[in-house]
């Protein structure tokens, strides 16, 4: 059935309830809510969550915003924790220790710090072992929970508290790691990059595919952070749109090795459009810093071209 936002919202109540403590204008809660809506209403889920903004603001003892089963243990191991739960499920189901008609799905949420950096080993291990789970990285491009420190997901030149834009060093001096490609190199059944855009269609459909594809699947979801990026809280969806329309965050999926770009902007917007509304890139717009914009644009173009080539190459008969 074709995706219909109204129907999804009407027929599938949010499994992450209101009353959590995430910031206004944070990109993560709409992402989590929509991904969980992709679950079949009759299916049970176990959510594993890395330490981070999402965890500390949704499960502060004795209150939880999660209606499914939920486990948080530490920062770097959301994937391996989930892999243990999934292994127990397999084992207990096989032994008849769980109701035969019970279907439980396993979804892990981690920020970019807990995924690109400290949790990369645990993620890689769990994916390679083939657990039937979906790992969702909500990528806000820095360690936001501890106060906006740079991560390997932070884009070049971004001003963070550990890569401050100073008079000698203009922000982070390294390019962003491409984790989606790292995960594609694990040869998983399904890897996708997505965002909350265009009525959440891309996000919902990819989440549904990831959850109901057997085996380890990975979703990388750009989730802007108003505190770290420096945009007005009511601008979240606009920022998401600009990330896609500038090709800063291409929407694509890799299904059994085949690349498919799920949205190609009719007219690719210049990267300034995405950078300008964000305080973290303010210094890039000072006179004399045009080279930074040029370099940033070049990097975006290079990655977009590479992706187009991958799509073409992987679909050749």
């Amino acid at each position, binding site marked *: 059935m074709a995706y219909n936002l109204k129907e999804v919202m009407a027929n599938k109540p949010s499994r992450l309830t209101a009353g959590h403590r995430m910031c206004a204008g944070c990109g993560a809660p709409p992402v989590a809510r929509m991904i969980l809506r992709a679950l079949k209403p009759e299916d049970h889920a176990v959510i594993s969550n890395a330490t981070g903004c999402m965890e500390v603001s949704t499960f502060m*003892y004795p209150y939880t915003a999660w209606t499914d089963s939920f486990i948080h243990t530490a920062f*770097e191991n959301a994937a391996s*924790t989930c892999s243990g739960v999934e292994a*127990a499920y397999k084992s207990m189901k096989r032994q008849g220790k769980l109701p035969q008609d019970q279907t439980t799905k396993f979804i892990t949420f981690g920020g970019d710090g807990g995924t690109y950096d400290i949790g990369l*080993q*645990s993620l890689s291990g769990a994916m390679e072992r083939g657990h039937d789970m979906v790992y969702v990285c909500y990528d806000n491009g820095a360690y936001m929970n501890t106060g906006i420190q740079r991560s390997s997901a932070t884009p070049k030149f971004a001003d963070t508290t550990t890569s401050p834009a100073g008079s000698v060093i203009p922000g982070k001096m390294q390019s962003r790691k491409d984790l989606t490609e790292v995960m594609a190199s694990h040869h998983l059944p399904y890897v996708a990059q997505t965002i909350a855009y265009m009525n959440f269609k891309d996000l919902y459909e990819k989440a549904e595919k990831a959850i109901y594809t057997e085996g380890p699947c990975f979703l990388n979801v750009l989730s802007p952070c108003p505190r770290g990026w420096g945009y007005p809280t009511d601008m979240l969806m606009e920022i998401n749109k600009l990330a896609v329309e500038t090709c800063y965050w291409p929407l694509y999926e890799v299904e059994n090795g085949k690349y498919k770009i799920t949205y190609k902007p009719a007219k690719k917007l210049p990267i300034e459009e995405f950078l300008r509304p964000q305080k973290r890139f303010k210094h890039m717009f000072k006179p004399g810093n045009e080279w930074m914009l040029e370099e940033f644009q070049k990097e975006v173009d290079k990655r977009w071209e590479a992706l187009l080539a991958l799509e073409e190459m992987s679909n050749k008969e």
Partner: protein
Amino acid sequence: MGIRERLSGNEAVATAMKQINPDVVAAFPITPSTEIPQYFSTFVSNGTVDTEFVAVESEHSAMSACIGAEAAGGRAMTATSANGLSYMWEMIYIASSLRLPIVMSLVNRAVSGPLNIHNDHSDAMGVRDSGWIMLFSENNQEAYDNLVMAHRIAENKDVLLPLMVCQDGFITSHSIENIELIEDDKVKEFVGKYNPEHYLLNAKEPIAIGPLDVQHYLFEHKYQQAEAMRNAKKVILEVAKDFEKMTGRKYSFFEEYKMEDAEIAVVCMNSTAGTTKTVVDDLRNKGVKAGMVKVRVFRPFPAEEIALVLGNLKAVAIMDKSDSLNAAGGALFEDVVSSMYVAKKQVPAVSYVYGIGGRDTTSKDIEEVYTNLQEIAKTGNIDNPYRYVGLRK
């Protein structure tokens, strides 16, 4: 009547794990415990057990997966040594704070650095305040028996704490000795079924585990953990009683060897007890009133009980196979002397650090300790309470 066999310590542990048939085993290779997951994965490959074996990419993930599996409602087990345990360290505390009765086999080895793969107790001592029940084993038989008793203790409703069974790397883990195994069905019946009250895979009652637990609650939660550790003492003895009924083998907090009329004694753990018993026998033949206490239950620490047993000695030496590097004596020494102080037992006590990094501990070394104890007993003088035995000058 049990089954007579000849097994190494690691084989004995793997056999117990096979008989326990846990739902999940997650482990990572590290000498000298590697053989345990090796043997166990053979049981999995041949369909001897129902277990899901998770060959994780690190010990950190081994403990994380065990936490996930146990929280899910399954029985989870693992095995490790030294740096593996150090790498798990963060998750060791989380496992106990989540009150998950995970059972681990710890094959004791020196923690780096520098790198050394041989036996001492520095790995175990690094987690002594982590809220795990810690049982020590003199030989393969005790490593096996302790593991068979483990789940009954850990999963008790008044306890709900993770438990580790320690044995000495190589000395016990790789030496083949006689052992009496218990029949499979008897072990199965003894260990029983795991019936957690709340668990993640109960779709009818979704639960959330591992909150942000701030100033209003953490103190009380830690108190509950401490209560559980105190409760464990009673449960450990009850389980030992049932175990004795089944096997005839008697276990308590510690083993007292010729302590009834002893005037001097050594307190030690694990395989050193075997050597010490021989020395005690020799000394007894010479008319020396020597005894030994071998600590089996290190956590919870049997403070009152040990003070009672040691309280009337003329001198006692406490042997630590790990140096606490604190200029104040080994970990076992500190626990024993503080137990005696609180119980108002003033016995001259000395700390001996020995066997670091697999340094062989011979009966000569132990004799030296007893000779020094005789001297202390005679004069009451202790010039230096922080001593080493077996250290090259």
